[in-house]
């Protein structure tokens, strides 16, 4: 603790507070925060109040941004939030765009796509802020953010370590794999066995139920949600909430072309996928047609 603690400031723009609440679920929340001086946070007690925050005069080393942005028209206490964001972004050594809204624009962007966007990105496009701030920005998309993804980044920053990022400034350790990685339904995917409707632990949701796991970047099935589960584990399709394109439409249905999924697993050529599929589908494997557990009634 000889090193001076970094000053952490959490700033909300157009948001649902989901990232704030997701992070509050972190079982080691206060150990993580103990590495920082908490300057401002939307719900936790902090040394400064909102008036001080709005004055723009607070110090800030690490700026966490939550929510999507519009250049003007979104105010707090009479202050344009985007101006405030730029003010603190200027001071910050590191900026974390926490969640899909602040990274790419997310759901709230759809209300007014021309004026609402993420901080450095508008979907996949770069925004005006990109040039100025991208070099110190780390993207942590997810709707909401995963508490442990954020804690990983915070700990790395507090230890002065460099985080390898991809072209959209996402940490490779978190987004280098897909949501499909580690899914408990992987065997069913390998053998192309669809889950029959909803509510079954057997079967894969990629073919009918809209699961975007195989082409969505994120470690939801490596670092589980609430330390216990994930959407795909409980039979809910992955909605692709970490992606710049989130949200697409008809999220519980797989878009298919003559029965063939319209979107391929990430980086897999259609010909390669279809060759493997045709073969895997040819085998009726008894174990995958059966229930895993039978309970006596």
């Amino acid at each position: 603790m000889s090193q001076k603690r970094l000053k952490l400031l959490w700033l909300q723009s157009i948001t649902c507070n989901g990232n704030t609440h997701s992070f509050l679920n972190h079982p080691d929340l206060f150990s993580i925060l103990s590495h920082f001086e908490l300057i401002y946070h939307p719900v936790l007690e902090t040394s400064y109040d909102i008036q001080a925050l709005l004055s723009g005069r607070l110090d800030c080393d690490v700026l966490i941004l939550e929510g999507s942005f519009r250049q003007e028209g979104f105010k707090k206490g009479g202050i344009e939030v985007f101006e405030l964001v730029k003010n603190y972004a200027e001071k910050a050594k590191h900026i974390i765009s926490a969640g899909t809204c602040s990274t790419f624009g997310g759901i709230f962007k759809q209300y007014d796509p021309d004026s609402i966007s993420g901080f450095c990105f508008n979907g996949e496009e770069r925004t005006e802020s990109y040039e100025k701030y991208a070099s110190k920005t780390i993207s942590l998309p997810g709707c909401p953010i995963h508490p442990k993804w954020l804690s990983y980044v915070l700990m790395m920053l507090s230890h002065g370590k460099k985080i390898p990022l991809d072209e959209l400034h996402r940490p490779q350790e978190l987004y280098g794999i897909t949501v499909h990685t580690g899914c408990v339904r992987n065997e069913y995917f390998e053998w192309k066995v669809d889950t029959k409707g909803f509510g079954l632990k057997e079967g894969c949701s990629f073919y009918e139920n809209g699961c975007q796991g195989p082409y969505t970047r994120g470690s939801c099935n490596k670092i589980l949600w609430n330390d216990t589960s994930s959407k795909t584990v409980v039979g809910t399709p992955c909605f692709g909430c970490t992606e710049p394109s989130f949200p697409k439409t008809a999220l519980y249905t797989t878009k298919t072309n003559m029965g063939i999924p319209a979107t391929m697993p990430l980086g897999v050529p259609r010909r390669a996928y279809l060759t493997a599929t045709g073969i895997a589908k040819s085998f009726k494997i008894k174990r995958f047609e059966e229930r895993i557990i039978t309970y006596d009634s």
Partner: protein
Amino acid sequence: MIVKKLIEKIEGEAELDFTFDKGKVEDVRISFGFYRGIEEILAGKDPYDALVITPRVCGICNHAHLIAAVRALENGYESAGAKISLTDKAKNIREFTLACELIQNHMKWFYMTILPQLEKLLDDRSGENHALKASYFSSTITKALAIFAGQWPHSGYAVPGGVTCDPTYIDVMQAENLIDESIRFFEQMVAGIPMHKYLNIDSVSELHKINGDLARVLRLLGASRMAETGKSHDRFIVFGDCILFKAGKSMATTVSNVDIQYVEEMLQAGTTAKAVTYKNRFFEVGPLARAMVAKEPIVKSLHKRYKDSLITRVFARVHEVAILLEYSKKLLQNLVLNEPSCTLQNHLKAVDFEGVGVAEAARGSLIHKTTVKEGLIAKYEIIVPTQWNLGNSSNTEQGVAAKAMIGSSDPEEAGFIFRAFDICSVCTTQ
């Protein structure tokens, strides 16, 4: 004299404009920030997409939005002639996960709003990190929720016909352990006495048996004479009919039926939030309303002495935690795992319909209405609980929270009375 106060560290922020006259609050206007347009975002989407989009109204009561959305869909498909019957298993799991969210919310409010704000207001600081307790408790209970729903916040596991999960006994036992852990926390930290003793308390004269942080809050409220502030219309309403909560309205000492068709939304000047009335009158929603309609003995007893004052309102919300914990444990014990989780095998293809779904969210009744034309959402309407409680005064009567604050001599105190309603600005301004 107008005094402006920006209320922070709620869900988002709210601005209160107090009109003071002779040193007391004469009226107060409540305004919220930015309208996010969730209803407009939904227009033109697949009806099922409401299950993903509407939870993003709110980071703290997202699950209630999911439940209201799925009920609206089911109601709509049924009105179009489909037959949907949920298994007890699916019903119980939905009830369980919703109960977990309410519990999570109430404990965060208790430890992150009520305790610290009350200590600050009365300058009686314990020096404790209350948020640590809130975080421990909420991460425990939301873990139980996530066992079934996959994650919290923002699950999408409730679908027409049931739920997507297919739990095993490993899941159920784990969830039960987490509920037990939450009960233990409530016993040791909140009530300071065993759960069964706590639940036996049914009158004000027995409240002294309570220890722990709840006792401290009651003591602080009592000693500061704040207990009896915050009275409002003393009218309560509940729409979400489920196993635990009953729909109805409570006025004076009478509980009677309600019909959702009398609910009306109206625009308000100067804020993006809409107010809501029932037969043109304001009603309070939330834990106090639910306890009044369900005639919960200890809350009724408090109400008899203190009416709908601050202490009754605060107590009702904490008390609901105990009731919900007991209830969720029973739900788990009653789960029959070999029943189907979901009774619909395929997406329903009804093209035109209207559906209404109601759920009891942490802050009160939440109503979703979906209108589907040619297979796509044509119109989506969301009425959130805080719209009931935080509507501004109309020509004929004062708003619920506004009335509770009127008469206070101090904006700080009025701000606390306001927070006792468990304010959520993000919900209010979807």
